């Protein structure tokens, strides 16, 4: 009997993906994790150091601050963007005038890079240049809006810029969701005499669950990767009060030349993301998968 032929062309087609996964993802990941267990500084070294880097990492104020900032940024930015985006979508859905213009205006920030976003907000929030200076120029000499130079408030500036960047996207997703709701539902609710706000709260929001989930996933991707925005907006400062993990890793990798600690931090991020992700990915893509003809 003839052997089952191997379809080489399929593997040729998949080869770039296979190479990328094997070398660029898995290989580098293993390397990074491995190095995190050494005492590498400027150069990667094979001197095993156990979990020393991790011990030091979690004794480092700056790392703890950056983790805290990431969580705070994530919760606030996603929360505010979802609420604001949803409200905007609802408002736009009320047959308002100039709907197209409004949609455009609300969404355009999402097309901008974090670099541009960070720069422009840095200017606006700069007390000696932007809002504070302008309001004082109007005669309110005691007006203060100097969050960006405040130790405890700088991270809120990052949140502000983040919301500005992302709320439009949430609005677009929500608006699409609202427009997809069966028009008969609206009719039924009016016949039943349900108050609009109740209708939104009890009917619309549950129906839009998938939209909320999509938006949350999309926004949370940006949270772990948050780097550019902080870099240009606050530089992680004042001090390192608005530092984030991605920036921490980059600094230790390149400026500080402490590869061991940087890879330990990266590995910690990796493990965190994997823990959150794996169950979800499994549920989403593999559990329900049926064989294809």
């Amino acid at each position, binding site marked *: *009997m*003839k*052997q*089952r*032929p191997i379809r080489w062309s399929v593997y040729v087609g998949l080869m770039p993906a296979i190479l990328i996964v094997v070398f660029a993802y898995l290989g580098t990941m293993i390397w990074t994790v491995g190095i995190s267990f050494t005492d590498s500084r400027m150069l990667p070294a094979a001197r095993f150091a156990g979990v020393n880097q991790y011990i030091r990492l979690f004794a480092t104020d700056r790392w703890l601050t950056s983790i805290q900032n990431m969580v705070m940024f994530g919760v606030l930015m996603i929360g505010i963007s979802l609420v604001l985006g949803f409200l905007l979508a609802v408002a736009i859905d009320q047959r308002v005038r100039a709907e197209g213009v409004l949609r455009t205006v609300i969404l355009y920030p999402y097309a901008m890079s974090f670099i541009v976003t960070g720069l422009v907000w840095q200017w606006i929030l700069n007390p000696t240049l932007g809002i504070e200076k302008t309001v004082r120029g109007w005669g309110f000499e005691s007006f203060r809006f100097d969050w960006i130079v405040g130790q405890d408030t700088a991270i809120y500036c990052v949140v502000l810029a983040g919301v500005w960047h992302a709320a439009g996207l949430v609005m677009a997703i929500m608006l699409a969701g609202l427009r997809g709701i069966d028009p008969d539902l609206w009719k039924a609710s009016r016949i039943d005499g349900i108050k609009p706000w109740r209708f939104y709260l009890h009917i619309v929001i549950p129906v839009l669950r998938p939209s909320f989930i999509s938006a949350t996933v999309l926004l949370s991707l940006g949270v772990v990767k948050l780097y550019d925005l902080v870099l240009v907006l606050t530089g992680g400062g004042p001090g390192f009060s608005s530092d984030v993990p991605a920036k921490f890793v980059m600094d230790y990798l390149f400026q500080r030349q402490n590869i061991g600690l940087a890879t330990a931090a990266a590995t910690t991020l990796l493990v965190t993301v994997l823990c959150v992700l794996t169950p979800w990915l499994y549920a989403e893509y593999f559990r329900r998968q049926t*064989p294809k003809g």
Partner: protein
Amino acid sequence: MSSVSLRNLKISFGAVNVLETLNLEVAEGEFIVLLGPSGCGKSTLLNAIAGLLDLTEGQVFIGGRNVTWAEPSERGIGMVFQSYALYPRLTVEGNLSFGLKMSGMPKAEIARRVADAARILQIEPLMKRQPAQLSGGQRQRVAIGRALVRNASVLLFDEPLSNLDAKLRTELRVEIKRLHKALGSTMIFVTHDQVEALTLADRIAVMHKGVIRQLASPKEIYQRPVDRFVASFVGSPQMNFLSGRIVRRDEALAFRLDGGGEIGLNGYDFTHPVSDGQVATLGIRPEQAQLQPSPQHTESLEPTFTIDEPMGPDTLLWGTLGGETFSLRTTSDHTPNLGTAMPIYVNPAQVSLFDAAGERL
């Protein structure tokens, strides 16, 4: 014209066995219909013949050639799909010639074959149109045409008519039958529609849960179903099933209904020996009973009919017999009294009997 031979075919997706050790021999020029409910494995079997699925075990021969691991295009087959699967953004002509171009055939030959197919299927005026501009029936003609231009000796049809409305379906059915007569090619046709199966097939393979339950001529399938599944799947309305027992009466066998009533089984062609008191099911198709006795229709039962459905040439009567649903098809003009029990007559040689496991007795 090639024969198709499937030997010990087994297909599993992971732990699920879709086809269990399946054998099928299709003769040259034969029209075989694979009939069964959805999920029975009939499309899987067709895809396996086409080479669109990898076999877990077994071999496929087409025209005596082992094509188990050959590419679909190397098997000498043409295939027509339920969803037409016309290539979008190509004209009808483009669709017909796409495969031939891909195999590097000379242009003149392509043109000749496409013209032939177009003529046979009467789609010449459509050649410059796009699939989106065609009606469902036209699309399916083009899809058949695409199979024809391959000059394939085996044509595979995967529920080709089920997306069409009733009128078109009948038209195209006849067309396919004519095509078979004209071309003489071997055809394997998958459907869940028993009318298509009964009208088209030389032989029908009734499938259930990955197994061929009965492979026989349409007539045999209809009249002598091998089990309750085949009996119930083929025929509309469904065969009446009445539960009861085989009893011995005056040296002859009879069937006593649990719900009351009894018929003699004189003339029934038993396939197995039976025992006295054996639990069994009596199957009577709606048209196998009639309101008047005749020389063959000797045995009587007394159902009560409650509803009549006039269907034009005949009328369906619905009611119960001993607590079980019973239907009867009659051509008689006079409507019986609804709501009261009345005698009907059956021919014991026509009925079916099944044992407790559902096998034909």
